[in-house]
């Protein structure tokens, strides 16, 4: 019962934040038709679906484990889309496009475990570390505070995945800390949005200014 009381609001908060970022990214894609914004839309939609599944998994009884794993897998797919966008930026040379799959390839170095949930968490952790490093590298180039916050948020998400993995090995050890850090990570990622004028961005969603370009 305590688990539901704590985890449900956290998951719903994560769902709200990621859905909001995803919707903003979609409004950007609909307006300027940028592939990177489409990837961010897929990423945050997937993460939001993951949070929805994690929340519903709390009430699924016998199927709880399966639904939780599906939620974590959806979030890992979301993290992959962000990592993929960074790969396209960093490996911007056409003869070796297969290197775009680099973040996926390193997932072979997953932390050994004996369950699907364990495997998915390891993949999420590796993808998040990669994305966090890439974002921090971008911060070093541009020195934008908002990029630093996104990079720190992604770093917190990676830490949350690591603690969740530890919690998996030693149940109950970092459960509350892991979930709190995860939501704090998404919160940190949400902060830079205050300067974008969210209402105007979402208002453009249906205008399709750049459609057909």
């Amino acid at each position: 019962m305590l688990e539901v009381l704590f985890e449900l609001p956290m998951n719903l908060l994560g769902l709200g934040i990621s859905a909001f970022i995803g919707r903003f990214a979609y409004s950007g894609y609909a307006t300027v038709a940028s592939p990177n914004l489409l990837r961010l839309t897929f990423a945050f939609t997937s993460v939001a679906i993951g949070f929805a599944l994690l929340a519903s998994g709390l009430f699924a009884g016998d199927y709880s484990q399966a639904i939780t794993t599906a939620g974590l897998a959806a979030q890992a797919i979301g993290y992959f889309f962000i990592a993929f966008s960074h790969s396209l930026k960093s490996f911007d040379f056409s003869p070796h496009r297969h290197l775009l799959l680099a973040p996926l390839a390193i997932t072979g170095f997953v932390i050994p475990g004996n369950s699907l949930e364990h495997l998915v968490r390891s993949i999420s952790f590796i993808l998040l570390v990669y994305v966090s490093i890439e974002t921090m590298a971008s911060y070093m180039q541009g020195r934008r505070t908002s990029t630093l916050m996104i990079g720190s948020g992604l770093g917190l998400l990676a830490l949350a995945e690591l603690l969740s993995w530890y919690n998996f090995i030693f149940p109950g050890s970092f459960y509350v800390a892991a979930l709190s850090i995860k939501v704090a990570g998404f919160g940190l990622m949400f902060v830079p949005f205050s300067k974008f004028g969210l209402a105007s961005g979402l208002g453009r969603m249906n205008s399709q200014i750049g459609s057909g370009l």
Partner: protein
Amino acid sequence: MVAGYRTHVSIIADILSTAKQYSYEGYDTGATVTLLIRKANVPHQRLGSMVSALKQAGLLYEASAKYKISERGIEFLKAYSEFKGFAETFGLRV
């Protein structure tokens, strides 16, 4: 990390910015093809197809063999600037 090439959207924004500069900001005669090629740094062949697409989308219009930005084009540039900032917070390009 590689500096990278300009994306399709950013080239479009460069073309529209040049057209805007020669539509409102003191030079209201419009931008010639030569100016667009030089300022937006796009080859002539590619510029032709892009300008056609921009005219078709209603972002640019032609007046006496010169190009001017439309109201819709200005709205696009504003949106581009906003979402460019959004993508850059993730360390990405629009």
